[in-house]
Every structure is written in C-alpha cells, then in structure tokens.
C-alpha cells in the first residue's frame, strides 16, 4: 500500500451561477435569444494540490464560500473536477450533511444497510456489525423507527456510527460533529484517534479552532478557492486569524 491515502493534484472547479435558473426547454430556448447573460462563472476551486498520508488527520479551515465543501465533494467523487486529478487509495466514507444520504421513509436499520452497500460494503459484513452500530449510536429504542422522525443529533449519531463500523480506509467530515452532545463528541474524538492509530486517513472541515488545533496533524486554509497556506495547525490557524482580523478591519472602515 502506498504512503498516501489521498493525492489531490492541481484541481480546479468552476460553477455556473444562474441568476435566473432555466429549468424548462422553453425557457432555455427563449433565453438563448436574449442578449443579457443570466449566468456567471464562480471559481470554487483554483489549482488545489495536497496529499493526505495514511494515519494522518488533515483539517481544512476557511471562511464560508471558500470552497471547503466543494473540495470534500470532489474527493468523495460526488463532483468531478474540471481539471486536475484526485487519487484515492481505499474505501472512503464522507459525512457531508446530517446523515449518509438517508431516506426519510426508511428505518434506521434499512438506512444503515442501504448506505453501506452503496459505499461498497458487503451485506454480510453489516449483518455482523449492525447491533454494535445501533448501540454506538445510542439508538437501541429507535432501530425500527423511520429516520424522518429523528432529531439532527440522532441522524448525526447514526451516520457516524455507520461510517465507523463499516471500517473504511478514509473518513471525511464536513462540520457535522458539532451537532452531537458533549458526551457523544468525546466518543467521536476517541474513535477518530483510534482510526488514526490504525493508519487510516481522516479529512475534516471545522470552524472550531480548538478542535483543529487539538486533533489535526496538518491544516489547509482555503479562501476563495485558493489554498492560502498548508502546514502545522498553529501556523495555519495564525494565518487564518490574521486574515479574519484584516477582513474585519476592512469592513469596519467601510462601515464608517
């Protein structure tokens, strides 16, 4: 197995922002003849390159709209990059929102099966672990409840428990762990550290600098689609802090 779990090489991604979204063929046809443009190009990611090693926790920080979620989606193969390449070694589980693409009409157990099978795991593997997953998620009483009745905390616990027990090689989190209560967050942190010890890679996005400083081995500061700095948590968080102070100063000046 190679040393790197994820290699991202000069990835760029543009989005077309429709100001007046054309959903129907008729609108597309009439829009074609109109002179003024209804869309502009937003460069979500601009020439991003970085590696994540096996056994490394990689943090991504930056302001809203900086491209963090887009980057996670590209690593998880949900979006395809316009240029550049992403090389992922091993099985990957992304928790990008509350849940793992859970279907609201299905029970917790059905959803565990559906999501893990979609992520490439065998039904037999899940059979042996389903009880542990439910127990870890603290959802023993709700295993047969439709997830549309779940609270956000319950959804997050179910997603995290599923992702942990199907034992992927790479875990990806997008700012969702903050939903859990303190007790569960501690449990998550413990599990993530044991993942790291077993040589698995973790990539996460967070606005909680304490968390980033405590757990990340390396951090990337992403702003306006560009990787501003990549390095040790202390350096990168300091750079992000400078950026925030600078931005506040500008907005204060313009307010006066």
């Amino acid at each position, binding site marked *: 197995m190679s040393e790197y779990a994820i290699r991202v090489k000069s990835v760029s991604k543009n989005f077309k922002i429709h100001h007046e979204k054309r959903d129907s063929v008729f609108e597309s046809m009439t829009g074609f003849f109109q002179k003024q443009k209804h869309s502009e190009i937003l460069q979500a990611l601009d020439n991003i390159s970085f590696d994540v090693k096996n056994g490394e926790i990689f943090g991504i920080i930056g302001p809203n709209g900086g491209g963090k979620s887009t980057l996670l989606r590209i690593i998880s193969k949900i979006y395809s990059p316009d240029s550049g390449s992403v090389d992922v070694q091993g099985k990957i589980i992304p928790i990008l929102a509350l849940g793992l693409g859970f279907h609201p009409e299905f029970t917790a157990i059905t959803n565990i099966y559906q999501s893990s*099978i979609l992520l490439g795991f065998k039904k037999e593997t899940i059979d042996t672990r389903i009880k542990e997953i439910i127990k870890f998620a603290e959802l023993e009483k709700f295993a047969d409840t439709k997830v549309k009745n779940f609270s956000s905390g319950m959804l997050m616990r179910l997603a995290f428990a599923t992702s942990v027990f199907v034992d992927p090689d790479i875990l990806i989190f997008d700012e969702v762990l903050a939903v859990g209560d303190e007790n569960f967050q501690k449990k998550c942190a413990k599990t993530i550290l044991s993942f790291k010890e077993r040589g698995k890679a973790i990539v996460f996005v967070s606005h909680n600098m304490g968390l980033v400083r405590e757990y990340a081995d390396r951090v990337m500061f992403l702003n306006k689609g560009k990787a501003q700095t990549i390095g040790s948590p202390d350096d990168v968080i300091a750079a992000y802090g400078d950026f925030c102070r600078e931005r506040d100063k500008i907005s204060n000046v313009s307010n006066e």
Partner: protein
Amino acid sequence: MTSIREEMWTNRAILFNFAISDLKVRYRNSILGVLWSIIEPLLMLSVLYFVFSTMFKFDIPNFPIYLLLGIIIYNCFKNGTSFALNSLTNRSALITQIYFPRSIPAISSAITASIMLAIEVGILLIFMIAFQFVPPITILLLPLVLGLQFMFVVGVCLPLSVLNVKFKDTEFIWNVVVHAGFFLTPIFYQFDMLPEFVQNILQFSPMVQILTMAHHVVLYGLLPPINSILYAVGSISVLTIIGYLIFRKYQAQMVEEM
C-alpha cells in the same frame, strides 16, 4: 456499453436493493400493497375488453388473452420509464452525499418494472387456464422477447433519468409519448388492421415489434417473423446507443443541478 454491463454486475447488490426498496416505497401506506400491480392491469383489461368487444366488435381470436398480453408488456415499458424519470430526483439526498454509479437508479427502475411484469405473467397464465387456452410450445421463447424489451427499457430509462434533472419538461413530454404509444402499439387491435402507410412508419417502433413477436410466440405458436427481429434489434440498438450517449454527457454535471 460494456462498461455499463460490468457496472451492473459489480453493483448487482445495490441494483436489487434499489429495485426492492422502490417496490416497498411505492406500495407503502396502501392497503392492497403489491396487489395493485395485478389489479391495475386487470381493471384496464376489463375496460378495454368491454369497449372493443361490445362497442367496436373487434374479432380477434382469444381476445382477452391477446389484450392482457399487450397490456402487461406495454405496462412494463410505461412503469419502467416513469419510475426512471424521478429515480434520481427522488434520491437527491443520497446522490449529493454518496458516490455510486449514476446509472444504478435508472437500471433498477427497469428491474422494478420487470419484477412487476413477472407477477403479471403469472396472472396471464391463470387467464389461459381460465379460458382453457393451451399455449403453444413457442411460449418458451417469451423470456427472450422480454429480455430484448428489458434492454430497450434500460436504454430509454438512462437518458430519461438524467434529462429530467436538467429539464423538468422531460416528464411532461414523456407522459404524452407514453400515452400516444399506447394507441400506436397493437395492444387492442392487430397491426395489419392499420393502413399500409401507417404500418410503414410504425414498424420502426420497438414496442410494435416486441408485441408482434410476443403475439407470435404466445398466441399463434409461430416463431417471430425475421423482419420483426431485424427491426426490433436494429431500432433498439440505435435508441440504446443514443440514450447511453445522452446519459454519459449529463451524468457528471447532473449532481450540480440538484
């Protein structure tokens, strides 16, 4: 195309998982459940039988069986494609959060429709017993005809699933196509009742040829006419290739529209 076949094989667990869960979601909260997939074609059958045997006095031998065969085969096409239309949009949460081959929802729609067809073929056999119709040995070729139809349905489902994400009109246009197709396919009439120039155009319709072949093997005890086989294989291949190309063009960017 071979890549789609390999994808289907490696992902067969997901395909069937989707197909079964589609059936479950479809009949959830309904008292009769899966029975609806039997009742619906039977209701259709009684209406059409009443209209065409008493009002129009069509004289087709074994008319109830002829009619039911046409209804269930056309229903499979109608169901598969209409499931496929919303197969991606119904799963937007899943698709924006987990990567899996984007062809799976469309193909599993075709599988769901085929499972329903299999149940309906059972009803057809019961009908044959009830009407004391002894099916000819050529009925054993029916699975081959239905296999060809499955290919056709998949070929149409793939582009429909991605197009309907990008253009919501797809669904409305397709509903008209399916309605028109019902009358342009020899379900309640025989193909040679049509004027010749209409026949010349409609012979390119895959559903016309599939139904013609089904009539031959199930009712007439004849091998499918060679013309039907050629037209069916030809038109289905062309449509499937076009469908696959459309699917490939839109499948990656489709997620960004969700």
